[in-house]
């Protein structure tokens, strides 16, 4: 960013052009020594990544809408497909509701981890991040249970199912599978950052923004679930 500062002579146009070499020079030339967002690069890049991820999930959900609207075969009722037997009675969407609450709780603990990190309370921040990762792993485990129930007991396949429109399976496995993959990646990411916190990696600089950046990713995973829950399970 301040590659021109090391020069002894006052920066003429030719001198500053020759001072920029390599990738660093390319970046500083293209950015013209300006910052658009006034946040650290890590945070800006995480937001831009999340924006691109938003488009991926939007495309999945739009594709789901398209096949659901255009099919002439009745769509399986998610309320019944995802019902659980509890004590002889069928409770609709019970497992999905529990999964939703688990994921929201993990978002809450993550927000508190960010708060602890900025107070430089790295032990509590790491502990809260591990709690968050555990809740996330619980979510993935419940999803694995749900998938195996649908595949083994109800005979739902990506190409067809006994309840109705064949597109139900492909949309379901694609959307929830991709989301589950995000949760799994998030769990690994959180555990890596928590380990680094515990080892005191950020003590020297005192910069704990990495926790907020990891939190942005985690809250995004929760955010996507809000849309999947509403548009796929409840619709």
């Amino acid at each position, binding site marked *: 960013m301040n590659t021109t500062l090391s020069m002894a002579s006052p920066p003429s146009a030719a001198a500053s052009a020759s001072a920029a070499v390599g990738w660093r020079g390319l970046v500083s030339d293209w950015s013209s020594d300006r910052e658009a967002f*006034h946040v650290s690069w890590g945070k800006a890049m995480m937001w831009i990544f999340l924006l691109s991820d938003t488009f991926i999930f939007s495309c999945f959900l739009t594709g789901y809408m398209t096949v659901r609207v255009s099919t002439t075969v009745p769509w399986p009722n998610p309320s019944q497909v995802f019902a659980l037997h509890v004590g002889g009675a069928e409770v609709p969407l019970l497992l999905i509701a529990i999964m*939703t609450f688990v994921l929201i709780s993990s978002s809450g603990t993550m927000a508190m981890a960010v708060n602890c990190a900025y107070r430089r309370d790295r032990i509590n921040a790491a502990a809260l991040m591990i709690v968050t990762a555990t809740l996330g792993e619980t979510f993935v485990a419940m999803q694995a249970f749900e998938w195996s129930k649908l595949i083994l007991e109800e005979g739902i396949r990506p190409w067809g199912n006994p309840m109705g429109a064949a597109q139900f399976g492909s949309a379901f496995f694609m959307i929830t599978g991709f989301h589950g993959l995000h949760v799994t990646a998030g769990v690994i990411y959180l555990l890596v950052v928590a380990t680094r916190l515990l080892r005191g990696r950020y003590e020297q*600089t005192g*910069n704990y*923004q990495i926790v907020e950046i990891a939190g942005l990713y985690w809250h995004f995973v929760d955010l996507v679930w809000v849309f999947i829950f509403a548009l796929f399970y409840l*619709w």
Partner: protein
Amino acid sequence: MSSSPSPSSSPPASPSSSGQQHPIGLYLKVWGLLFVLSTLSYLVDYFHFQGYLRWGLILAFMLLKAGLIVAVFMHMAWERLALVYAILVPPLAVLVLVGLMAAEADHTFITRLLFFR
């Protein structure tokens, strides 16, 4: 992902640029609110609301939850407008895609009814 020596990544001296520190009570309130909203949207299904009431309620609760998560948990409410607009405006283009695909899907549906039944 350790920080580069850029000036904006200094420790929480300037709250607008790097240190997003907010009271834990706020997080707890939003957390509780998200629980309530999730319960309400679950109850929409549980009580078998149908038609526009169902879809309206589902969408309303969804957007409220999404707004709370983005604004408070992801700190968008305290970021500079340059970042807020750069992130929140582009997804609106998705609405165009949704509109186009809804028209396309309706067309496919009618064609299927006409020729494949």
